[in-house]
């Protein structure tokens, strides 16, 4: 199949970027990133600079890949990262527009590569349980109801890719932050620090330049791990409680 690509090229964050048109021959069994590999091999053969994009595991779990494909973070297939999207979902002759994740808190580094270290800052603000190595009681000391563990798990499947931020017109990181808050806060081990965690993580999220949530729900639609916006509601309740609730 022959595809007409329009790819965002930007040397670095000091200069402006622009779309550039390329055509590429692909086969339907290729992954989207393998199609990009073909393009890059062609560019290198022509002694041009290949398109910079992030990728690593190519199994949909590391969260590295981050392209906006035809206006959608990670492309058209629901619940799928860019690396797991395959070309059989496109047709011969298709036009495909490829851009980086765009958000104030994710500055472009080069081409399709953005800086997502603001996510690390949010986790560092409290996305953990304060337990030193060696302090733990027996793993079965605290039974956890299966469904509750399942809910915590659903939130914990976040891969930190940032599609939620890219999908949000406000560039909000509420889905990412709330998923971590739910994962830890739903478990008895994480409940102890819950209030403090919520306050610190939400404040860091604001400080890092992420926008507010206006309940559009685009984050949930585009999340490759299909994380629910129920987590945002849970976080909002906890945040209000942390601000107006009992003083710590």
């Amino acid at each position, binding site marked *: 199949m022959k595809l007409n690509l329009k790819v965002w090229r930007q040397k670095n964050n000091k200069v402006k970027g622009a779309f550039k048109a390329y055509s590429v021959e692909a086969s339907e069994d290729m992954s989207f990133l393998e199609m990009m590999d073909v393009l890059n091999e062609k560019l*290198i053969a022509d002694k041009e600079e290949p398109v910079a994009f992030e990728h690593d595991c190519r199994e949909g779990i590391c969260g590295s890949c981050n392209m906006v494909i035809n206006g959608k973070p990670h492309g058209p297939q629901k619940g799928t990262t860019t690396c797991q999207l395959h070309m059989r979902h496109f047709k011969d002759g298709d036009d495909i527009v490829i851009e980086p994740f765009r958000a104030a808190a994710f500055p472009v580094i080069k081409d399709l590569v953005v800086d997502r270290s603001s996510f690390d800052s949010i986790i560092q603000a409290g996305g953990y349980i304060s337990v030193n190595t060696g*302090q733990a009681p027996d793993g079965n000391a605290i039974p956890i109801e299966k469904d509750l563990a399942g809910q915590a798990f659903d939130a914990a499947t976040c891969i930190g890719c940032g599609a939620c931020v890219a999908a949000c017109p406000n560039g909000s990181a509420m889905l990412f932050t709330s998923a971590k808050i739910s994962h830890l806060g739903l478990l008895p081990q994480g409940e102890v620090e819950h209030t403090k965690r919520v306050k610190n993580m939400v404040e860091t999220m604001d400080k890092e330049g992420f926008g507010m949530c206006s309940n559009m729900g685009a984050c949930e639609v585009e999340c490759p791990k299909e994380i629910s916006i129920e987590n945002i509601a849970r976080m909002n309740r906890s945040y209000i409680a942390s601000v107006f609730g009992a003083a710590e």
Partner: protein
Amino acid sequence: MSTIQLQSNSPKGDLATKWTQYRGSMNLVAPNNKRRLDVIIVGTGLAGASAAATMAELGYNVKAFTFHDSPRRAHSIAAQGGINAAKNYQNDGDSTYRLFYDTIKGGDYRSRESNVYRLAEVSANIIDQCVAQGVPFAREYGGLLANRSFGGVQVSRTFYARGQTGQQLLIGAYQALSRQISSGKVKMYNRHEMLDLVLIDGKARGIITRNLLTGQLERHAAHCVVLATGGYGNVFYLSTNAMGSNVSAAWRSVKRGALMANPCYTQIHPTCIPVSGHYQSKLTLMSESLRNDGRVWVPKHIEDAKAIQKGEKKGVDIPEEDRDYYLERRYPAFGNLVPRDVASRAAKIACDEGKGVAPTGLAVFLDFASAIERYGNAEATSRGLKNANVTQLGEEVVAAKYGNLFEMYEKITGEDPYKNPMKIYPAVHYTMGGLWVDYNLQTNIPGLFALGEANFSDHGANRLGASALMQGLADGYFVIPYTIGTFLADEIRTPAFTTDAPEFAEVEREVAERILKLKHVNGSQSVESFHRRLGQIMWEYCGMSRNAEGLKKGRQMIRDLRDEFYRDVFIPGDIEDYNPELEKATRVADFLELGELMMLDALDRNESCGGHFREEYKSAEGEAARDDKNYTYVAAWEWDDNDPSVHKETLQFDNVELKTRSYK
């Protein structure tokens, strides 16, 4: 050849108590002194992140490095199936000794007893620690932790978090690390790649890194250096490893005098999605946990296989009596759950006989039909349903257990594995070889330590499933935080190192020259094309089966390819810029040397053991034939551009009897 005496430094005494006794009597570093000692940790996967977090908790000043944009991306994240621990929660007779024994046997008696026993011993603590961190392991209805079985064992000791165990464990370690970053005890360097090791007076005292955003070389000094940089499976180009996984940190240390142990021990995982085209960039694993319920088979008759290869028939069209469930037939005691090396070779034999089931002829079936029926009937019975749609009920149970794996399979292949059996084929997955380390996880270079997949010590010639996560976390949480004290206790009077020392300037200059040399080749072929060709040579001559003639040929082909690389590689972009092609080039340059050493090691080991199968050495039934009399040793290689030399650590087995491994 220099004279290096390899001392395992395993403490004396009874196997079962030696770690506890050693830990209780080793030199300690007092808390006020820990604050004055700097530790560099390279790599932030399970081993590196857990080590960095724990050592920071203890008070050391840690500098941690990853080439990723965040520690959360390390390839540990992709591990699917689970983590072993000798908890005996299932009351099925598990014990520390049994886990130890299974690991020694699974490794085909080529690992070090004392290290493996310690691994089994601390395994239980890992589960406790992870649960306390909030790792959402699978649970039973009573709220307690669930287990499943993995290959090569007859107990249920694998803890899991759906098919995402690695992700959940890594996020746990990443969070513990994040907590220490926010406390200021860990200084985190993202997007920094280690390109060389700096020795001062023979001790590891620092590293040279390249800032991958700017291309600038940087010097970092510390009292010691810990490598947790993973394995080197990507030397094969196509593997289940992430695209960025590489050997460079370990290999640059080898070039500074560290020894590479058993580099030829490669794990070929039996259940991966088969190769479908020449453009393919990586292979995807289907978790070993699937072999709990999936049955492996090929058609009995070559005509049926041919029809399937041509697309004229499907797996479901072959009647039961015309299927050969060859693992169940050949290994009745373990059936579909034989260890990985055994299952992989059996698949190769079936395909070599012409019974493969993909257009390429290189695939076997992994079939869930009988599991779906079994679970469906059980569900119908337990819910008291008559005339129920058993298949649908069974599919629901299978989806709950393996849903994300089935989805991934469908995304990649476009086929529905609930309706048609999966097609799978072996692929490179893990490397048991690695930097030689002693009981303290210290390499032969004082002050240089290696953890996790980067070292060689625990898995012998074949790793059992769900043991890589166990080893990474054992090394990081529970071993290195203690054993590093054996080196650092003598360093408390050593002032902090600065990067002004001439040794740093010299190594930095060498790195800069190396990069310039690569860039200045300015040839016509891409880095990727060289990597792909290297992978083909490795797979052909140093893959699932090897022979002397092929290994000699392969070694020469790699040398020729290396010469061509330095004559004709083309690296676009600038050196002092974000430049992924340059990153790849430095990594592939190192793979081109490692590959040669792997051929040499495989050629030197005139026996078959675990993942190392030499066609000349097999039993009458075609099983691997070890030569314990001559090869019960670790081959630790000292690199030399012309003539690498081997140093041997004899393996002592005081607690288990060396037997022919049998899973029949």
